[in-house]
């Protein structure tokens, strides 16, 4: 990517992905620094769906050992920016 994406842009795209895979989540209530597992009962399948959605939306190959870095909205945001910017 030519210019690194803005934090707010990445975050809003991640929120959109989140509500796509789990329409029963109210995005307005998401605390970006809390584990999704704790605040919206993300289970292992939700976590995988989120990783797949991020991988497809941002064209990233995400190895399994990186999943923990997608645990909060904030950490996922940093992960995507780090990986996208590093190219």
């Amino acid at each position, binding site marked *: 990517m030519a210019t690194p994406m803005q934090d707010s842009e990445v975050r809003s795209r991640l929120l959109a992905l989140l509500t796509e895979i*789990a*329409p*029963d989540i109210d995005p307005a209530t998401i605390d970006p620094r809390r584990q999704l597992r704790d605040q919206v009962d993300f289970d292992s399948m939700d976590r995988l769906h989120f990783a797949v959605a991020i991988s497809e939306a941002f064209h990233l190959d995400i190895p399994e050992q990186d999943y923990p870095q997608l645990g909060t909205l904030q950490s996922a945001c940093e992960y995507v920016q780090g990986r996208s910017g590093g190219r």
Partner: protein
Amino acid sequence: MQIDFRLPSLGADMESATLAQWLKQPGEAVRRGEAIAVVETQKGLIDVECFEDGTVTALDVAPGAKVAVGAVLARLSVAGTAAAAVASAPQPPPQAPPAVVAATPATPGAPREAAGTGGLTRISPAARRRAQELGVSLEVLAQQAAGGVLHIEDVERLAARAQAPAEDARSAMRAVIGSAMARAKREIPHYYLGLTVDFGPAREWLARQNATLPIQERLIEGVLLTKAVALAAARIEGFNGYFREGRFERVAPVHVGSAIALRGGGLVAPALLDADRKDLKTLMREFSDLVRRVRAGRMRSSEFTAATITVTSLGEEGVETLYPIIHAPQVAIVGAGRIAEQAWAQAGAVVVRPLLHLTLAADHRVTDGRSGSRFLQAIAALLADPEKL
């Protein structure tokens, strides 16, 4: 040949559902397994599938109407000889036997839940005005009342309920779970067994597999467990099937109900069909699809009626051990606690391993501890040798 398309029971304690939408119109062809209607239940929206090939000739219920289990939703014209149609029409699908309620449609709740839009609803003039003030559709009110006279209080009650749907759905779900579990506890003589399993081999095998797979095809631990339970249930008699009318009915296909927690509270346990005969990749794809549809509130009727055994897991953040309650008319449920690193004795040394506490709740009318023990050990043996899954 005309046949009735009726609302199936989609759970042991379902008495009625609200018709949300017709997916077919009179004159349209339907195929076996195709959804005809969407109904709203306490478990969310469910696609009600047809079990015959044919053509829709009439729709008997309007969207918004509350319908009792067993009531006629639509009429179909089906192909084939009259004799064949007569023989097959009243039959449920071979792999989806009706749940217990279907056999006893005269439930205590039935009288106030009139089937379909049978009765005419009268709305008092004051109630009509109040409905307009509150912006409540008279049509919806009439359908919810399903007969009888609507007064101003009814309008206000219904309007209030429409404003607090989430709270209402939660307490309705809790009530459904409560009565299903109370019945299971009352009627099924449960026995419980537990076994600790070293999940290391399964976890290591999974990590190796996933490292080579594109992210869309990676597997999760729950799929290995589902497959192991399905294979064990196919091999060891007495855990796959139904207890109905005083006896155990063994079922050949293994449809594993998978308990999935709902974020609003409560849970559903739709089935993964023929889990013993599908490879892990297929099971994973179907499980993934199931969770997506549960999250979106969109399930299929066959998934609710089909499970022959259930697996329930509290996930990574849960406790070590759970003691589940059997979903009648099934006769067994396998519980999986959190997989956590713990001390484990192995070859004379204490090592740290990821341990899984497996529990079995089974029906003493069908099996006893000895076969239950063999069943749990069969699951453990499969998890120890994941190549065979």
